[in-house]
């Protein structure tokens, strides 16, 4: 079953200082709706269902995937965790 396979949850966020037009616009919208929101930053969230392999190998692979494809190192940071 798929559900038994390990899953990587990957978070890709804009680096600090990089303009986030989407976040700004969402913040303005939330404020216009009456919510008190100081800042909004928008990022990506990915769930990868992986093959069942030793933990360290998966960790190394996912880190590589993030560097190579899932994030843009010029403007984005990433972090991830693998479950279970």
């Amino acid at each position, binding site marked *: 079953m798929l559900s038994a396979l390990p899953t990587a949850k990957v978070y890709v966020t*804009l*680096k*600090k*200082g*990089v*303009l*986030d*037009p989407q976040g*700004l*616009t969402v913040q*303005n919208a939330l404020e216009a709706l009456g919510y008190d929101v100081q800042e909004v930053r928008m990022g990506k969230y990915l769930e990868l269902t992986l093959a069942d392999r030793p933990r360290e190998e998966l960790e190394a692979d996912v880190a590589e995937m993030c560097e*190579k*494809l899932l994030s*843009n190192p*010029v*403007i984005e940071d990433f972090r991830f965790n693998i479950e279970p």
Partner: protein
Amino acid sequence: MVEPAITPDTIADHGLTEEEYDRIVELLGRPPNHLELGIFSVMWSEHCSYKSSKSHLGKFPTEGPHIVQGPGENAGIVDIGDGLALVFKIESHNHPSFIEPFQGAATGVGGILRDIFTMGARPLASLNSLRFGPLQIPKNRYLMEGVVAGIAAYGNCIGVPTVGGEIHFSEVYNGNPLVNVFNVGLTRHDRIFRGRADGAGNAVMYVGSKTGRDGIHGATMASEDFDETSEERRPTVQVGDPFTEKLLLEACLEVMEENLIVGIQDMGAAGLTCSTSEMASRGNTGITVDLARVPRREEGMSPYEIMLSESQERMLLVAKPGQEERVREVFARWNLDCVAVGEVTDDGLLRVTDDGRPLAAIPAVALTEHAPVYERPLAPPDDLAERQSLDLDRVYIPEDCSAVLLELLASPSIANKEWVWRQYDHMVRINTVVLPGSDAAVIRLPGTAKGVAMSLDGNGRWCWLDPREGGKRAVAEAARNVVCAGARPLAITNCLNFGNPERPSTMWAFAEVVEGMAEACEALGTPVTGGNVSFYNETLGTAVYPTPVVGVVGLLEDVSKHLTQWFKDEGDAVVLLGPASEELGGSEYLAVVHGLVRGRPSIDLGLERSVHELILKAAGEGLLKSAHDVSDGGLAVALAEAGFQPSGHPLGCSISLRVETRPDAALFGEGPSRVVVSCIPDNVQRLQGLAEEGRVPFTLLGTVGGEDLTVSGPDGKPLISVAASEAKRSWEESLPGLFERPQERDFDR
């Protein structure tokens, strides 16, 4: 914050030479402080000061009866009658696009749009000119995907159609892609605004996005004067915000329509520094700006960072006396920051203060007019003779020219670019009369019968072989494309993409290209209204080809008379107007089929002009059904392309060709000043008469129609025979096929 000391290292880190530093001291009458040094360094950078190119650019013809604004402003302006004017300009974003292709290209589009609407014009249409290394290399695909997506994202969102452009591929662009973006806008003569700060006491207002630490001069980042972590102080890639720019565009046009402002300039390269010093300098005034009032996105920004930030979507304007409040209201309606950050003065100084405390005081002209100008040494490259020699005896003649045609049609530089322009909204604002795909795009001008045709062209290979002739041919081809739409070329803008100007061979090529272009502009009656120079397109000692990109705008008095490049009906006559050239040098054919970049292109500008006049005359009389200039891939490719109408079954044609030297040269040579036209058979005689009057060689080539494209030689022997549909497939499937390969970001490992 401790004021960092100025040492030889700081000076070098700012990209300034010792002589330049001495000159700064002389101009100020004292040593600059750190902020002042930063201000000088960006204003005296190659990008802002044109210090290496200025002495050459003066050779361009810049005047003509319809020129309203030549070089020196944010964009050039030409008169098109009825009180209307076109505002247009081209800009490079090569380096940012290499670092981050999507955002680099996107912010390039944002920048050129601001250049246009800052002059009071509503942007009508954009074009782009791109150069990449071969697409077989994953990194190049990654770059091109990102650049095209970035141009699309910005242009589509702001709602300005991207209606055309050009793309070429060559190894020389592997480490240095070129991304040049062009825009043309429409305004009325009584609604033209300039980047001038007039009227001492007038309020200087900051509008648009807040200021962040975006793109601050890389060189200065190396200096060690910072108190926070270095991670936080690294220059940040600029991110485009087309939504904010759309609001800015509408708000700016509104304050202009209401006549509330004296002058306005966008904050592009060198941000607040450049806009304040240039506006003051043009107005023979001074500006005082108080940094405490500048809207900021981040905490703890230093004055240095605020002055040098290149955050996008910002403008600086000078309000008319008493209108500040109304200006604020307009921007508030569009939900934009609008703050009086200073005022115009009459002492000629750019003064920077922080809550009144003086931080810098520099004569504005010291930053602009008194910037250094260099006569860099020039020398032709050592291997020039070798490049130019072409021994045709050693170039075999292919047996199967049909196969060569198919190969050329699939060559990415020639292949259908629909993969690209499908991603661009090219129809928004419902003015696009000729969609991408023809020689020039045509936009109708709302409220008039007129239309404007435009094209970007440049062939780096020719310029590498012979920069002077290549420069001429770039202007000629761009103008010819516009003529093929039935429009009279009015003026040009240009982007000169070169390597390191400190290299004498680069500078020599630059000088030659400029002189060639200038000569062509004279000959074709198209003055230069502005442009952009991009040097240092060089990685590890490998420079790009000298690549001038020429943008031409032309006018159609009656847009309904426009032409496209496509054959229309079976039975129409196919005619070649222009010389029966068999020049092979520098052709795509030589490069693709024989792996040779050799030869010496040339052009007769007088004949070029005659061809233009002939086509305009014939088009005016309604004689022509189509006109397509012969360029990359030569006559055979031009004939094939003329059959690929945007919808429906492709049209073949049967052609018989005189061959003087060799068939491949007649079919695939790229000699200039040639146009394939079609017309009903009854008009052939009249057309021939006009050609004779105009002293333009006239060759009846054959007839439109049939399933096949067939070209036969002098003895009736078939040279080419391919199904038009097969030719079209080859041309159509090439680019999408290359991009179907899996994507990966390839980090130069």
